């Protein structure tokens, strides 16, 4: 039979029909299963496919200074986010993007790492330039899974003058997410959080609560619109923060602090311990950190020999030197081992013999017989050697520790160095087992009494101590934020007349003939304080100058001090000539504004006589000083009648 006989054909046609029906049937069953049986499930999957829940960042609270001026606020910024994708395609996209925006390889790796770890959208750049955004938007199709959002961007109004205080914000790191200080219930990847400074300390106040937005995306990650199927939640803005800080004072200090030197200036309000200014030089601009700092800037900040990132005001530890003599004096008065008017038996002849050697006074000429105030005024080491011996080493250690010289101030900042001070006799042996095998000798008391030895304090700590001297012996912990959360203050058990005699000593430092007179004499305010010349590892070897201290307080004449200022200038050599004017000018600027007196850049007496004649106010306020100057000028004229008189320099 022919294979193409109609009967054979019909039989084979049946086979073909069956095959067709079977295959088409399989398809239909497949469609029925996916569309009808699993239809609902797939519908859900489809919407989760295209609807994404995005975090809407809450605007961070504004930070105001004590006068209501803005220290930190928000401006509109652009954030670039990448949606989860396979690592390879994300890498390709990011590498393409690097051509249009500032995107380092390190940053790309970090984004990919987060993408792998969390499998959700990751912020590529939380603060993109408008130009980059425009370039990206133009080439939308080349960048699948990338979307751009407006979001508040932090802005700091003070540049280098306040970076250390405000701190800065940045994207939360994986490590921070895992830590307890950022609870999972409130924080998630991609959020901007305070990193250091006030931003970090008051993170919970400033942060607010991010909102939620449901957005419909297309497959390339382009936002198509809001999805109305689920409820959105508006962000709750962070609360504002009011600081005790005086923005203009901070700026002023930055202006007057020598540009080439490093150091710190702390200004406290003795009334409540409020921090009026907290300045560390050199500073950095906190705006650099917003949206991630550029690697090369970061590198430059880190390798800079002057360590701009180091907050000298609260972290720097320096030998307090003569500024600490007031503590020794206070302890002695408190213990009753000396009275204010008592004169030490051994006169200062430039040095004193104790143990087996001579202990030198800073002034080889000597100061003769001094009472307490004179000893402070002259900063006489020999007096304080004897005072230290009277207090006794053990007493000195316990009392100084009680006052808090081995503690932190408790300022409301995330980081603060602890003062370094031996808290008991055993401390020496623990620290230097070889050197103090038999324990410290009484000679250590001599060292400690003049502010040397194993005694390192932060400028902030010394400021807090001088607040106690400006008040009644108690000092609340320094507080940056109004109503801020701080540690406990301290109590120096001093009687009012003891305080008065200590202040008397401070007055002598800035009085005519005192070491810091010319740089601190002001038209409107009384400035009193203490200079200090702190040894440092370089200066003891003669390789650099000593650190210069001045701790002072100022207020209207005859009234209680209204501001306490401590200035430390690294390698500044002279407390009287370098640090004291900074303190006086800081206090002057603050008080003039407080009392509505116009501000001038010519403030101290020294500045006045360097730029013009001896001002009238000097004659009225410091008649003794004026007479001395006139006399000096007379003598100079007599000696060389045709020459212009030498301008007086500062004290020693």
């Amino acid at each position, binding site marked *: 039979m022919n294979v193409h006989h109609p009967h054979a*054909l019909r039989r084979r*046609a049946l086979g073909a029909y069956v095959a*067709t029906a079977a295959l088409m049937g399989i398809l239909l069953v497949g469609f029925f299963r996916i569309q009808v049986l699993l*239809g609902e499930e797939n519908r859900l*999957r489809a919407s989760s496919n295209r609807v994404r829940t995005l975090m809407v960042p809450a605007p961070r609270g504004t930070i105001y200074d004590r006068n209501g001026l803005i220290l930190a606020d928000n401006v509109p910024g652009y954030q670039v986010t990448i949606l989860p994708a396979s690592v390879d395609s994300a890498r390709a996209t990011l590498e393409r993007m690097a051509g249009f925006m500032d995107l380092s390889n390190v940053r790309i790796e970090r984004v990919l790492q987060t993408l792998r770890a969390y499998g959700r959208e990751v912020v590529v750049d939380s603060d993109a330039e408008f130009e980059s955004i425009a370039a990206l938007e133009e080439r939308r199709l080349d960048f699948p899974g990338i979307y751009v959002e407006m979001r508040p961007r932090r802005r700091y109004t003070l540049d280098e003058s306040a970076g250390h205080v405000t701190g800065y914000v940045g994207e939360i790191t994986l490590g921070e997410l895992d830590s307890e200080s950022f609870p999972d219930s409130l924080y998630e990847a991609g959020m901007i959080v305070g990193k250091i400074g006030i931003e970090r300390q008051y993170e919970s106040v400033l942060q607010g609560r991010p909102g939620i937005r449901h957005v419909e995306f297309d497959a390339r990650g382009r936002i198509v619109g809001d999805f109305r199927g689920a409820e959105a939640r508006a962000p709750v803005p962070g609360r504002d923060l009011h600081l005790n800080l005086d923005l203009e004072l901070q700026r002023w200090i930055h202006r007057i602090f020598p540009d080439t030197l490093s150091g710190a200036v702390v200004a406290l309000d003795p009334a409540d311990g409020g921090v009026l200014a907290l300045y560390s030089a050199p500073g950095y601009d906190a705006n650099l950190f917003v949206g991630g700092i550029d690697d090369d800037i970061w590198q430059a900040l880190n390798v800079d020999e002057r360590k701009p990132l180091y907050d000298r005001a609260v972290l720097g530890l320096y030998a307090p030197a003569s500024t600490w003599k007031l503590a020794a004096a206070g302890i002695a008065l408190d213990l009753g081992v000396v009275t204010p008017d008592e004169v030490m038996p051994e006169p200062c002849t430039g040095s004193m013999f104790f143990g087996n050697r001579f202990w030198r006074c800073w002034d080889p000429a000597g100061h003769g017989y001094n009472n307490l105030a004179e000893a402070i005024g002259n900063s006489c080491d020999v007096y304080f050697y004897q005072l230290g011996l009277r207090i006794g080493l053990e007493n000195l250690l316990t009392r100084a520790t009680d006052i808090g010289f081995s503690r932190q101030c408790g300022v409301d900042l995330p980081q603060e160095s602890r003062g370094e001070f031996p808290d008991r006799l055993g401390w020496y042996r623990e620290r230097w087992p070889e050197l103090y095998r038999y324990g410290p000798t009484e000679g250590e008391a001599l060292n400690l009494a003049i502010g040397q030895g194993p005694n390192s304090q932060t400028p902030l700590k010394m400021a807090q101590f001088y607040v106690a001297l400006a008040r009644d012996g108690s000092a609340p912990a320094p507080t940056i934020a109004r109503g801020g959360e701080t540690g406990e203050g301290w109590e120096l058990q001093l009687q009012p007349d003891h305080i008065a005699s200590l202040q008397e000593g401070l007055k002598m430092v800035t009085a005519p003939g005192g070491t810091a007179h010319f740089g601190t004499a002001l038209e409107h305010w009384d400035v009193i304080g203490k200079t200090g010349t702190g040894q440092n590892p370089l200066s003891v070897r003669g390789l650099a100058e000593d650190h210069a201290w001045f701790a002072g307080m100022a207020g209207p004449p005859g009234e209680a001090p209204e501001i306490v200022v401590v200035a430390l200038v690294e390698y500044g050599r002279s407390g009287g000539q370098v640090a004291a004017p900074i303190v006086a000018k800081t206090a002057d600027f603050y008080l003039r504004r407080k009392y509505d007196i116009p501000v001038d850049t010519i403030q101290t007496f020294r500045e006045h006589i360097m730029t013009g004649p001896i001002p009238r106010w000097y004659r009225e306020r410091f008649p003794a000083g004026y007479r001395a100057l006139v006399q000096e000028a007379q003598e100079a004229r007599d000696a060389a009648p045709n020459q212009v008189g030498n301008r007086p320099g500062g004290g020693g």
Partner: protein
Amino acid sequence: MIRLLDRWSLDPQLVLGILALSLFGIAIIYSAGQVYVPNPVTEGAWIRQARWFVLAMIAFSLVSRIPLRWIEWAAVPSYVLSLILLAATLVVGEGRGTAAGVKSWLALGPFSFQPAEVAKLATILALAQLLASRESGLNSLRELIAPGLVVAVPLMLGMRQPDLGTAMAFVGIGFAMLYWAATPVWLLLLVASPVVGLFLAYDTRIWSVYILVVIGCLILLRFRLSLFESVAVVLVNFATATISGPLWNSLAEYQQNRILVYLDPEVDPRGAGYQVIQSRVAIGSGGFDGQGFTAGPQKRLDFLPEQHTDFIFAVVGEELGFIGAFLVVLAFTFVLTRLVRLASHLSEDQAFAGLVLLGIFGAWLVHIFVNVGMTIGLVPITGIPLPFVSYGGTFLLMSWVAVAIAVRVAHERP
């Protein structure tokens, strides 16, 4: 139109069915271009497809006037020519559009076309001529060698492009036509056995059982097959099992991924599994009655891959639902069975016509099943278009030429 078709004694049901599918295709391609973020390529695709459709209609009316003997005469030359063209694509071929990795296009001045599409038709004609000359069925492996080569040469050339979809179409053509030429089914299965064994070889135990079954069948069929042939089948089975490992390793990574993903799309949901998952989700979300013509959100949001070409059926599924998918599959079933019906009503001296019809049937059946099946993950992803519906000029044109030849050979008495 119907009268026009009638006058040429053509098959109105078949042509109307395919006409309907072609118009439906243009509509769905239009819908595929309706996305939120317009894309110049997909947006105007329906217009280009409509232009090709007009061209296809002209080609249809021209080709359907060609006398049968011309077609028979042209079978072998066109086969040889298409092989040359296929070979040429291996050297000077270009990738296009969504299939940029496959060098299957040949540029002819301003025109470019896919020689593989021409080759399918030419192979059908050549094989039909070869098989029609036979008086009896093909009962031994030796008899299968010649027709096998006719199919295998273009198949291997297609594989080299590398275009797995075209290769599969040739397999469909070969099996359907051999079947129609009265090759016993068991013989076809034996021929297919090494290929099946190739896939089963991933597990030695399963393959061992399989080869025992094959040998058992050979013993049962020992009177119908020479000893030499039986041994050859077993040896080829062993050979394919042996090369399966090296063969797997020689596959491009994307080809391996497609097979792995077919087994479980979730192994790589953002990479190779993406297309299947997105397509299946889109089709599934269409539910019973669909999201509405042009309104499918997954398509609009660009989640669907290759939505106007290979995955056009996902748009059908999402927007027209199960009802729509059902009707389209039904329409294809009608077209396919219509071809078989035409073939089965021919007289004995129309063997050539019947074989051509079944060749077309085989090619389309593979195209339809693989294309529609892959959108729901029933079949591994292969770049293979859906006849008359997928966007693609050469394919539409050649499919219509095939229709023209089909109706011509079916209705002309030699």
